[in-house]
């Protein structure tokens, strides 16, 4: 029983990180119908910014987080402007290939700049874990879950109650109609990229602290798993991404705990395939009929 609860806590920990990253995928997909392959690498950039802020500049964690969020948001907007915007009306496969290209570009540029070897992320919340009976709850886990929760609530508030959020909902529903209503579609898309990337940066920093390292290819696996989470929850649906993230985190940690550590990733991808086969719209997604 103790192990079960322990795995559950681990699952919540990684799950909340996946959920944060999945939000970026789902928001961008919801608004421009593009799988932003570069999102995983934006989280890598965020982690690097956090790493340098913590080590080279000795900033406190909060400021490092803020710096990573701001820079990643700017990067996300820049990528959208340079690479995706010219392809807004091109076939979707072109935009997707471009996204792959951006992803490769970020990974290899960072490898070029900072080398391929992983760097050690400082242990930020290196305090004694809280012991509850036999349970060990590291403070990092609590902070991760709280921070992710705060980000999600913040996002929900922005989307539900601000004018920008309303614009985002409008554009994702029907961008042409939104344009006719006087919504600045390009600006809304830009803001979506910014928010998604900032959340990704938070996820990236938390991920790199949890696994103690940053390296240029670190974004790939969490990026892919977060994508699986977004699809599982129903891509384009924001609560779906959160739910999917926690489910994937839980599955991963229970597989690692009870079955096998080596097969955990394979099982996550098998889930993706199964979901797409039996319910391609995801848990919370709604079915859409294709019109001629």
């Amino acid at each position, binding site marked *: 029983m103790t192990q079960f609860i322990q795995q559950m806590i681990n699952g919540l920990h990684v799950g909340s990180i996946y959920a944060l990253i999945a939000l970026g995928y789902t928001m961008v997909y919801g608004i421009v119908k593009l*799988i932003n392959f570069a999102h995983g690498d934006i989280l890598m950039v965020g982690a690097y910014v956090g790493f340098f802020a913590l080590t080279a500049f000795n900033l406190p964690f909060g400021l490092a987080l803020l710096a990573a969020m701001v820079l990643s948001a700017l990067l996300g907007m820049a990528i959208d402007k340079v*690479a995706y915007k*010219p392809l807004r009306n091109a076939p979707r*496969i072109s935009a*997707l290939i*471009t996204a792959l290209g951006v992803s*490769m*570009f970020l990974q290899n540029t960072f490898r070029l700049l900072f080398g391929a070897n992983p760097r050690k992320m400082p242990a930020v919340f290196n305090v004694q874990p809280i012991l509850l009976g036999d349970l060990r709850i590291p403070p990092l886990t609590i902070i991760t879950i709280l921070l992710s929760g705060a980000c999600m609530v913040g996002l929900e508030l922005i989307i539900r109650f601000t004018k920008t959020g309303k614009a985002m909902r409008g554009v994702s529903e029907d961008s042409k109609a939104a344009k006719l209503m006087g919504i600045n579609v390009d600006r809304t898309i830009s803001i979506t990229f910014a928010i998604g990337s900032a959340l990704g940066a938070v996820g990236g920093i938390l991920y790199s602290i949890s696994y103690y390292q940053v390296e240029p290819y670190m974004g790939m696996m969490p990026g892919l798993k977060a994508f699986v989470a977004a699809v599982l929850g129903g891509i384009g649906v924001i609560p779906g991404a959160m739910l999917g993230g926690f489910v994937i985190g839980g599955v991963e940690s229970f597989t690692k705990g009870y079955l096998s550590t080596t097969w955990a*990733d394979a099982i996550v*991808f098998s889930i993706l395939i199964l979901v797409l086969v039996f319910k391609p719209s995801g848990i919370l997604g709604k079915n859409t009929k294709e019109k001629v």
Partner: protein
Amino acid sequence: MHKKVIQKYAVNLAGVVAVFLLILLLMGMGVVNNYMTGILIFTGINIIMAASLNLATGYLGQLVLGHAGFMAIGAYAAALFALNTEMPDLPTLVGGMAIGGAVAGLFGILIGIPALRLRGDYLGIVTLGFGEIIRIALLNLPFTGGAAGLRRIPKLVNFNILYVAVVLTITFLFLFVRSRHGRAIHSIKEDEIAAESVGIPTTFYKVYGFAVSAFLAGVGGSLFAFYQSILDPRKFTFMLSVEFFIIVVLGGMGSITGTILAALLLSFANEFLYSVENFRLVIYALLLITMMIFKPDGLLGTREFSLNGLLDRVKTLVGKSFPKSKR
């Protein structure tokens, strides 16, 4: 067969033989050394891989991001076959290629039936996940040698055999995409709904095209295994799939000769950029992005280079400059 058709085939055959003889001559003269022969062989394998991917991406219009997975299946199946049988070289090679292709094709059907119900980008993700699952499986299954991979696979492939294999693959693809089945596959890319409404069983043809593509990738993988004689599961990553994909995009989705051209170009570029290895992938990435923004069709688009067309053009040019006197 019509006389003109035979003549056209003859021209193409002559071209293929001429290129082969030229390379052999250069090898004999020592202009093409062993190192360069090795590069040519890898280029040939890349051509098979990218051309087979082009069938799925360029003709069927599906985004496939796990082609390295099919290659790995073919390579491992062929290698395990060769390691567990005692046969002369040629039957081992042919048998290994057939088994590698067949197993990969079977996986293509298995993954294709559920995955091809999905729209483009989802399919890409499913194939990506599939490629990762294959890689993890190869690392962990009891009979694939784990992280150490497979060793002492007989080295059966040399340049001559590979050249024949490439020519056969390309010929097959050319005939296939122009056949009734190939045209049905092409129509799905152009407009799936319209294709369905004229009575083409789209799901069947999607799975069919996908399986043929996977089969050829398996054949490519088996050739790779028989040339390398060592298989390392870490080779078959997502990045390898992306490299094949780049070749297809650069050459033009829907142009087989474009794929050949792009594979050759990238091989030369690789050698050229060898000294700046770290920049290579950055340059590729920028190439991919600029290409999509400014020339999304690739080098040849959907056109094909045709030796006969070239000859006809030369003939008309010559005819214009030297008008024949009346007979």
